[in-house]
């Protein structure tokens, strides 16, 4: 997709290019506060967060939905922010890594990731943690193999996977049983 032109490219040279789209207003809740953004409809939620809101905790690792670094929670569900247009989140509640801690008190998963050394470079980490929050909410994971499978949309090039599983396991084990009562 990065190779726009070439000798064999479409004969679009003759066509007039479409003008860039006009910006639109989008109102959504981000980490608990209501925001109105003026963004073009071609802006992804990921770029809106990183560039318009300076919430750079959400990472861009591929921009193609192949790595999970941009995982955020929309209405509590984990999604890839790079595959979501900002305008699609009108009226929705978006939670990013910046919104997980309660003031100075880290979210239990954030604590567990530090304790278990579940990262090295830290770049995939916000996505891993948001994904893990979504995973616990889904309540489908019971075994370590379940965690591995259900966390496989989040790549970690440093290879911290065993520690990521340990961190999630630590939080799962400390939670009341009702948390994993979801339907398999």
């Amino acid at each position, binding site marked *: 997709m990065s190779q726009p032109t070439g000798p064999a490219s479409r004969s679009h040279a003759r066509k007039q290019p479409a003008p860039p789209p006009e910006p639109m207003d989008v109102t959504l809740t981000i980490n608990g506060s209501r925001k109105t953004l003026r963004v073009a409809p071609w802006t992804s939620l990921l770029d809106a967060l990183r560039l318009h809101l300076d919430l750079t905790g959400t990472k861009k*690792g*591929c921009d193609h939905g192949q790595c999970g670094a941009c995982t955020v929670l929309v209405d509590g569900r984990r999604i890839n922010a790079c595959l979501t247009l900002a305008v699609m989140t009108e009226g929705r509640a978006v939670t990013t890594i910046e919104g997980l801690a309660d003031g100075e008190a880290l979210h239990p998963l*954030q604590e567990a990731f*530090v304790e278990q050394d579940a990262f090295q470079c830290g770049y995939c980490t916000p996505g891993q943690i948001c994904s893990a929050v979504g995973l616990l909410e889904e309540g489908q994971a019971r075994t370590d193999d379940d965690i591995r499978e259900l966390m496989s949309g989040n790549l970690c090039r440093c290879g911290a996977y065993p520690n990521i599983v340990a961190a999630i396991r630590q939080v799962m084990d400390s939670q009341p049983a009702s948390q994993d009562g979801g339907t398999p």
Partner: protein
Amino acid sequence: MIAKPTIPDPLDRPGSQIGKPVSRVDGRLKVTGGAKYAAEFNTPGLAHGYIVSSAIARGRILAVDTAKALALPGVLQVFTHENRPSLPWFDRKWKDDDAPKGSPFRPLYDATIHHALQPIALVVAESFELARYAARLIHVTYEADDHQTDLREASAHAFTPGKDKGGFQPPPKPRGDADRALAEAEVSVDLQFTQAVEHHNPMEMHASTVVYHNDGTLTVHDKTQGPLNTQTYVCNVFDLSKDSVRVISPFVGGAFGSGLRPQHQLFMAALAAITLKRSVRVELTRPQMFSFGHRPETLQRVALGARKDGTLTAVIHEAVQETSQNENYVEVVVNWSGQQYTCDNVRLDYKLARMDTHTPLDQRAPGAATGIPALEIAIDALAAKLGMDPLELRLKNYTEVDPNTGKPFSSKELRTCFRQGAERFGWHKRSHAPRSMREGRQLVGWGMATGVWDAMQGQAVASARLGIDGTLTVGSATADIGPGTYTAMTQIAADILGLPIDQVSFQLGDSNLPMAPLQGGSWTVSSVGSAVKAVCDRLRDKLAGLAAGLNDGPLKGLRADDLVFADGFLIAKADPSWRMSITEVMRANDLLVLEDEARSIPYYKSQMQHALGTHSAIFAEVRVDEDLGTVQVTRVVSAVAAGRIINPKTARSQVMGAVVWGIGMALEEESMTDQSLGRFMNHDFGEYHIPVNADVHDIDVIFVEEQDDIVNPLGAKGVGEIGIVGVPAAIANAIYHATGKRLCDLPITLDRILEA
């Protein structure tokens, strides 16, 4: 935890910070989204660049039609070879600290296309989306020439390189007559290997944000393994003084070698910022992450001869590796085979073949990760032929000196790695015949291999500033691409001055800090850690001197050696009740701050007299589905001897992560070239497979005790590379044990297993 108690060492005292499994000091920033990476420094008026890449592998650009892109409101400029400002002519202006011999690639220099995906234009616009859109409107016409991207064909013109890159040693001269010994050997194996191209693919894509200040100075946030390397490159290429370019890169989202050389997004962002007098960011796309350096494709032959009792009589290791047309990228692939085992007849040969690709680039354990698996698979094949336990065969030919040079190792606890690793894995329970450990339709295999890497040290400088409140700030212009440099350096400094960890901070990633070498080759702890130790030792001596000079103080007349530094106090060894806090010492001397700087210089003389290296023994269990050919690596034990371990928690993570890399190398990673187009066709994470969570199971890391006072004053060798070396061989050998199939082409994908 590592050092033996036989040698007295102030670092081993109780309460020492060194050797403690401290959680990362930057952990909180990384789990809250507070750590800022190169593309995350937002600044008012920031413009965005998007790169257009070549659609052909070799030839010339005839025309670039930028009219439609430029007609869009908000598009600021399109830079091409036709409108770029004047750029330096001499190669030396384009060289960087990791450049091999040759002529470095120059983006937008002229109309020549050297390799596929070469950056040929930069669109700069008010928004990222607009720049991306405008890039698609640029029409380029080319005149394509024939390209050569087939290593087997290119190897017909292979040549022997010289000492063409820093740290590279050409293979030693042959000893004995290996070909004759092979022909006369009682038992022999002769195997051919291929190693696929691999791309580094750190999770953070390469990006540079260049902030333009009104006085014409620049602040550069770059994805780099060395801020000073970035600074030098920008200054040389754009003819700027060092005062006018400051590089600030506190966090790097992985690199594994990709940040050892300035990549073209840095050039592009700086070019646009300087020309447009605006702040500019350029971030590569994931497909563009396949447009620069990579682990080179390699063809190898390893032939071994032995007596029936397993004594090695012949070792032959030949390798042909790709390089570009413009530079001689070299790495040490074959030399290890003359170093690992005792053998009188050894012939090692290393050649390069030129192809129309971007110059390859160091990737985690460059050379060793390619060469050692070939040797270690051949050793396993020889063991199978001899009917010997492969561990026994390795012990039979074990060497205490480096046979390439005759020098003794400064330390080599590989035997201990074998013993502890085998015990932990349960190796003695292995049934040695292939296909003898099945579970239903799953064939179970156990394999092992040895790993080795250098223990290098470079010069480095560190500064330190101690406040009267007992807070210490230490700094050096290194990077932390993920190993935990912030944490390890903080521990070393806290340890020496006896301060709690939270009173110490370490600064890096800033070109204003004192000189540090590139972060790579597992030498940061050794190089920068030694500088941190040196500067803290000086502060220690200064404090001791200040305390000794206080006539009415309790430490009057005592020397640093007479004192212990702990919990912010200077304490007399003779009587612990004689003590002063750092604050008291400084106040009594009317000092608010103590500052110093120190350079660490390797023990060249003793290092020259020794072979320096890290070693490992890797044991792996695989399950191969008999019907589908799928492989699961269910268990890995990696026993590592790497001197003193500064932080066992982060070091374990490094080795564990490197084992994951080894799994990728063994089973998944391969950048496949479409030979008709001369370009990589699987250039994204959907098609270029790296291990995911479900691919990784139990990984057990053991650090064996190893004392070494030659490698550096800390005795720490570094563990960034050793974890990967040998892992692909252990897995390939386990696959042989499971299936009876000897697979020598990496990665071992399921089609290769089914077809073998």
